[in-house]
């Protein structure tokens, strides 16, 4: 009995031996920051003096007096996420589904082309978009549109309150066919042929039914993984407005998303307590999105 217990303990300690480096880094750089954000969000902190407890003041300010947040940042974030997230996700699935129906060689080439924009994700490579969307007539898009006679004067794409957001969405969608897309492609390809045959016998009579009753249910785990990646990607690319327009805040806050608002308050105004409250709200939004997705796509318990 005692020997068995010792053996068990021994086993646990080897498990923790393998787990501990990850656990340590995960705790220090993911869990602790989240907890700190929550704590700081109840304080006033200028990064020099010790944080002062202020209760719910930051949250009250955020939702009642911060008109930029309520009128620009929050609506922008919701609009951006609701369009880029679901649309990018639906596109990844449809592209994966179509790719699965062409032969291997061309599939590999197409998949590579469609995937490669996601390799440029990150702030650094947005510089190239600035050239394409340059505001005067030497900008490529302007030049093409002027030549075709669609517009008469060059458009200040990245400084315009009307166009900055659509450009951001376009760039985000363009680079959103990443890991999630690859997972879904693998998912479609791995569905057992017999499931389809069985489906036809059961009376499935068109492509739409086939997708809804066979394809998607058979690759639910990949659909879920893809959805999770779509959420991460959407909120992660949330900072491109600033790198595209070259300014934080973006022109008249047209492309201001929550990540930029956090940076604005945290690193430009040094109101770190307030910035932390925005972080907490953002984390909550991400958390709720994840709950919704798991509810929709998770395996029924």
């Amino acid at each position, binding site marked *: 009995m005692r020997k068995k217990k010792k053996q068990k303990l021994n086993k*646990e300690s080897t498990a923790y031996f393998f787990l501990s480096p990850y656990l340590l880094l995960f705790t220090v750089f993911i869990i602790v*920051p989240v907890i700190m954000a929550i704590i700081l969000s109840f304080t006033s902190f200028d990064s020099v003096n010790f944080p002062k407890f202020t209760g719910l003041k930051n949250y009250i300010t955020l939702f009642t007096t911060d008109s930029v947040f309520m009128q620009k940042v929050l609506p922008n974030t919701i609009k951006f996420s609701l369009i880029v997230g679901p649309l990018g996700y639906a596109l990844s699935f449809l592209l994966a589904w179509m790719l699965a129906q062409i032969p291997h060689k061309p599939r590999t080439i197409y998949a590579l082309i469609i995937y490669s924009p996601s390799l440029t994700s990150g702030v650094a490579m947005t510089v190239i978009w600035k050239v394409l969307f340059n505001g005067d007539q030497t900008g490529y898009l302007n030049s093409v549109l002027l030549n075709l006679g669609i517009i008469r004067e060059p458009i200040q794409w990245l400084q315009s309150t009307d166009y900055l957001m659509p450009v951001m969405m376009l760039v985000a969608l363009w680079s959103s066919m990443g890991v999630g897309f690859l997972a879904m492609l693998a998912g479609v390809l791995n569905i057992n042929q017999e499931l389809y045959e069985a489906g036809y016998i059961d009376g499935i009579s068109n492509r739409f039914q086939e997708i809804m009753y066979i394809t998607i249910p058979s690759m639910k785990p990949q659909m*879920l993984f893809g959805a999770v990646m779509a959420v991460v990607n959407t909120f992660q690319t949330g900072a491109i407005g600033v790198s595209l327009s070259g300014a934080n805040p973006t022109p008249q806050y047209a492309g201001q998303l929550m990540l930029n608002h956090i940076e604005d308050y945290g690193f430009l105004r040094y109101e770190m307590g307030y910035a932390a409250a925005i972080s907490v709200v953002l984390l909550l939004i991400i958390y709720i999105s994840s709950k919704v997705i798991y509810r929709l796509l998770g395996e029924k318990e």
Partner: protein
Amino acid sequence: MAKLGGSRMNPTRFHKSQIKFFIILTAVAVFMGLPILFIILQAFKPIDELFAYPPKFFVKNPSLGNFKKLFQLMDTSNVPISRYFFNSLLSTGITVLLTLVISAFAGYALSKKKFRTKTVVMEINNLALMFVPAAVMIPKYLITYGVGMIDSFLAHIFPALAMPVGLFLIKQFIDQIPNELIEAAQIDGAKELQIFRNIIIPMTRSALATVTILAFQASWNSVDASTMYISKEKLKTFSFYLSTLTTTGNDVVGQGMAAAATLIMFVPNLVIFILMQKQVMATMAHSGIK
């Protein structure tokens, strides 16, 4: 009754029913590929073609001028390009390597070991799949400061090592390895680290390749450490340098150099992906969240 699509999944050869897919996919591929092609063409345009009005998409007389200027420019500033590039290579190399070791260790424990907190750890990690590090940039900054990594090369590496997606993919893959294999090795007297090295690592290659790509991409493209944690110019990375290149606005010369620098950033990502794409697809088959 005509057969439906299922029987046409993963076809071995071309059939005219695929034409519609080819048409749509070609259109999408053109849209996705054009900006990439634009970067490549722009990078090789000589100065007079960059200035040309109206701007031309294709390059007539490709030249390496932009690359040369890029290197010269950095030579005249205090920090030479080689330094930025070396910093990027070194930090990315170490980050990828350590991420692999740490995630494979943890994946092995979570997949094949029994311990009390296992389900909790797994659930927290699954939740963290959605974690967006930038959301907590301020506390992360304070912690990096607290552990003394501000203005240290280590700031490029340590804050980026815990990668929930990496652990998740590796764990899913190790789940496929039969327990009998490990038990047999244990009976033969193999030590834990031997089992890890001789069984787990070779059989997890695909997942490791995938995590290599993801970690490489994240680290290589990242500007966070250089913007937030490090103020010493000589410790910053190439990606950071690129992000500062075109802040000057409509500078045409800058455009060419930015394109050249973007290309230098893009190519390693692409090469690594092409080299490992088979393994990636094998990993993705097991990527589902159950």
